[in-house]
């Protein structure tokens, strides 16, 4: 018997949930709104909500003054590059752990997880020093490698939990029917693995895009991604709310959109498969 829900109760739920949802979302909404105001309107008291002269001027100014596109491009390369590189290394590893498990598989997985727990600040100077020695400071290559390494445990784990769900019987059946190893991988495993790989890709891009310890500490002018670009607004001159809002909106928009597609994967990825 399904629980009957009165319309009254449903209405109350809806009102409460929407009120809280909007309250939580408000800072983001306010940032987006402010990005379309002039600087004077942005600090107007009382605050202006929808009735102001909408302008795109801030977006133009941000791009013009600070060469926003370069930071955006750095973010794209670093987040995308570290994710793709991580997947190339992690797919075979997760694959072999899921399909050819040995006695040590669990230990290796747990150990990989433990490297993720290492506080970044504890190894800040060594990495800084290695970067100087290798000429990697303030380069996109260096940051791509570091972000790949810090997220590699999550990538391996997520892929592992997805691969684990591919039933082994299907492989055996294919083998019985005379499929070669190549056919097996190409026609049976790959199609079944692609959703998991795609989810992992998505979550990892989000994590890498928003990473704000190494990106702040290992870059200066050349390789700085959006996280570092936004941080430069912490000591600005003159009125800047509308410009800050425009820059912020551009920095978070792509990830907000990606994030909405990856709600479910987020849980699995960030709890290492412990909550599904």
């Amino acid at each position: 018997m399904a629980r009957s829900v009165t319309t009254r109760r449903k209405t109350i739920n809806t009102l409460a949930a929407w009120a809280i949802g909007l309250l939580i979302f408000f800072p983001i909404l306010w940032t987006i709104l402010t990005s379309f105001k002039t600087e004077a309107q942005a600090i107007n008291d009382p605050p202006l909500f929808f009735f102001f002269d909408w302008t795109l001027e801030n977006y133009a100014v941000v791009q013009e003054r600070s060469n926003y596109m370069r930071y955006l491009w750095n973010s794209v390369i670093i987040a995308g590059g570290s994710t793709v590189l991580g997947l190339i290394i992690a797919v075979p590893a997760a694959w072999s752990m899921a399909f050819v498990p040995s006695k040590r598989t669990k230990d290796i997985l747990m150990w990989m997880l433990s490297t993720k727990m290492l506080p970044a600040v504890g190894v800040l100077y060594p990495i800084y020093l290695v970067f100087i020695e290798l000429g990697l400071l303030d380069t996109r290559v260096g940051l791509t490698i570091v972000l790949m390494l810090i997220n590699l445990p999550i990538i391996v784990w997520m892929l592992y939990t997805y691969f684990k769900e591919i039933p082994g019987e299907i492989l055996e059946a294919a083998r019985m029917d005379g499929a070669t190893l190549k056919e097996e991988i190409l026609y049976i495993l790959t199609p079944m693995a692609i959703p998991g790989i795609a989810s992992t890709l998505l979550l990892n891009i989000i994590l890498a895009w928003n990473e704000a310890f190494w990106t702040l500490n290992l870059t200066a002018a050349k390789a700085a991604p959006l996280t570092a670009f936004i941080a430069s607004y912490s000591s600005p001159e003159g009125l800047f709310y509308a410009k800050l809002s425009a820059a912020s909106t551009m920095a978070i928009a792509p990830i907000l959109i990606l994030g909405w597609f990856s709600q479910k994967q987020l849980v699995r990825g960030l709890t290492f498969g412990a909550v599904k």
Partner: protein
Amino acid sequence: MATQHSRSAARFMMAPAVILLLGWMLIPLTMTLIFSFKKYLPLRGGDLGWVGFDNYVRFVSSSAFWPSVQTTLIIVGGVLLITIIFGVLLSILLDQPMWGQGIVRILVIAPFFVMPTVSALVWKNMFMDPVNGLFAHLWKAFGAQPIEWLSDLSLFSIILIVSWQWLPFATLILLTAIQSLDSEQLEAAEMDGAPPLSRFAFIILPHLSRAITIVVLIQTIFLLAIFAEIFVTTSGAFGTRTLTYLIYQRVLESQNVGLGSAGGVYAIILANIVAIFLMRIVGKNLDT
């Protein structure tokens, strides 16, 4: 059936990931350990030799150490308390039947996708600024004196910002856990006349306990390491210097690498204590 051949192939496929992570862990860790036993001032003479446990003693006995531990505990504890309490309530609400559930979920989860530097700066300027911030406008509208959030209520403000970022994470995981609850159990309890509060206390909460533990552990590990939020709001001033931030200042700002490294070793030990508990739970899950 795994053959000898496929075993060695598996080892080969695993090798790059294992070797890279091993290097990523061992090389910097060894360097930090070595530095921590040295007097090492890159800008004032460089490597000045071994000093034994001197750095470890000095890091702990410096006047900044205990306040930073206290600050860390207040921030981590405060954020955990807020995100767990509101996360449980919010996930129960979101699990109820309503119109537009999908959209509300998106609204609630959105803050998690905002990069830390953006959320910190938006809160600092557009909400908490004592002259032009939205809170100042609101306070003035009620005839009250605007609050200097980030200097007078600095810890509370940081907790508020960080909680806003992490509430979606707690809510999302708790919601996932609630949805796996067998609704027949709740119905049976309801028919037997159990009031809502006992249904919550005796059915929902026990069911959520594992998910809550996981949220607490994972958040603790991330919260111990928060950096950008403090970096762009107060830069460690007004009593917001956490252990992480103190180590950062010792290493990069005052370039006292030996002292900072000793602090780093403490931070690693602290994180590992939390990690052991988390790994136990995750490991148990791996067997099933």
